[in-house]
């Protein structure tokens, strides 16, 4: 899997002219990274807010030095997430262990924090897929295989797996976004729909 050396979705915006929409986009992106790494909605929110706050502080100090705000923000985010991880164990009181154990064995953090209606829409759409399509997605997403690896494993032409995956994803996108393509405007809802 390869990416362009520096994806060119946006030309870097000089930090002194950072629009609110760009800051919000950065905050949502940091939230996704932090949610993946920390598995906690509140911690991800805190990390995203902290990252944006530090970015703005840096802009206030020396905006001209920040040629690429998204890259700069990601660097901040990595430190914030690492600090959060390191502090998790230290902050956990020993008295909480028994309770948190009982909680952890019965609750899926993702199911708990995922925006409910988004999750339900995806699940409902997933249920309408053919068995073969569901199985392809299950193997790719739960088994973490690429379409090529799955095709090789099943002895199928890779193109067949890719087509099946594309067809299934398009149906899920319809359910998730209300249209076939992912949103391209910053006015979409927040990652978890809590208005934060």
């Amino acid at each position, binding site marked *: *899997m390869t990416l362009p050396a520096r*994806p060119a979705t946006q030309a870097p915006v000089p930090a002194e002219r950072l629009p609110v929409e760009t800051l919000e986009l950065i905050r949502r992106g940091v939230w996704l990274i932090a949610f993946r790494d920390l598995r906690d909605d509140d911690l991800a929110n805190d990390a995203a807010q902290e990252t944006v706050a530090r970015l703005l502080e840096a802009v206030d100090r020396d905006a001209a030095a920040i040629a690429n705000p998204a890259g700069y923000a990601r660097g901040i985010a990595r430190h914030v997430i690492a600090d959060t991880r390191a502090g998790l164990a*230290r902050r956990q009181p*020993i008295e909480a262990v028994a309770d948190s154990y009982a909680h952890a064995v019965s609750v899926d953090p993702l199911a708990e924090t995922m925006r409910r209606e988004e999750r339900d829409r995806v*699940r409902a759409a997933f249920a309408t897929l053919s068995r073969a399509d*569901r199985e392809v997605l299950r193997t790719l997403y739960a088994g973490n295989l690429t379409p090529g690896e799955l095709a090789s494993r099943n002895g199928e032409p890779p193109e067949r797996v890719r087509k099946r995956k594309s067809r299934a994803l398009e149906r899920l996108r319809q359910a*998730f976004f209300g249209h076939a393509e992912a949103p391209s*405007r910053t*006015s979409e809802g927040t990652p978890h729909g809590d208005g934060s």
Partner: protein
Amino acid sequence: MTQQPACPLANRDELARSFVADALRGPDKDAFEEHLLGCATCQGEVRLAFGIRDSVGARRPARRFLVPASLVLAAASVVLLVVPNRSPSVTDLGRVESPPVYLPVPVRGGPIMAMFEDGMRLYEQASWAGAADALRRAAAGGAPTDVAWFFAGASELFAGRPDSAAAAFARVIALGEGPYLPEARLYRAKALLRLGRSSEALAELRLVPAGTAVAGHARALGDSLAGRGVR
């Protein structure tokens, strides 16, 4: 409202899938995460990928911090039982001769980490039941989750509780991509074999990725099961 430029990434769905599985590495990871902070389209794809993982029953990827990168499992510690002059039963194939090796490194403190270290001390002393209990509580309290659940599962195996072991390894597997995932699949298969659930064991073995340290063991064991008619 600001109209964003079109996303130039043709393979964004694959990148999103890999992102949520925490399977991107090196420059790909750096580039995509930076891109993600400026691309609403890819943010939507990532949210969808989280939703798909939820729908297919996968869980969050492993939380990696403090210890795991420095821990090394000795894959060779998994030994298939070979009994001279007798073909081992399917249940015998689930036997594990030696516990996975844990190589400790200094870690930052806190009560949970102390509990984790206590668990690993008990593990090294072959106090399996105590180790399993401490490691489960440490995992629940925030210790490096994949490591703690993995060694909790190994402790359960040696404590003679394959059902609890299978459940603990399933926790590691449910965390998704991580350094302990291939080993967890192998050992879960072993636990399932001890329970007589050979078909499930074979299915788990087939999910051990090629090219990993335990892939050879998994394949040999899978072939052995298939040779006994397990499907």
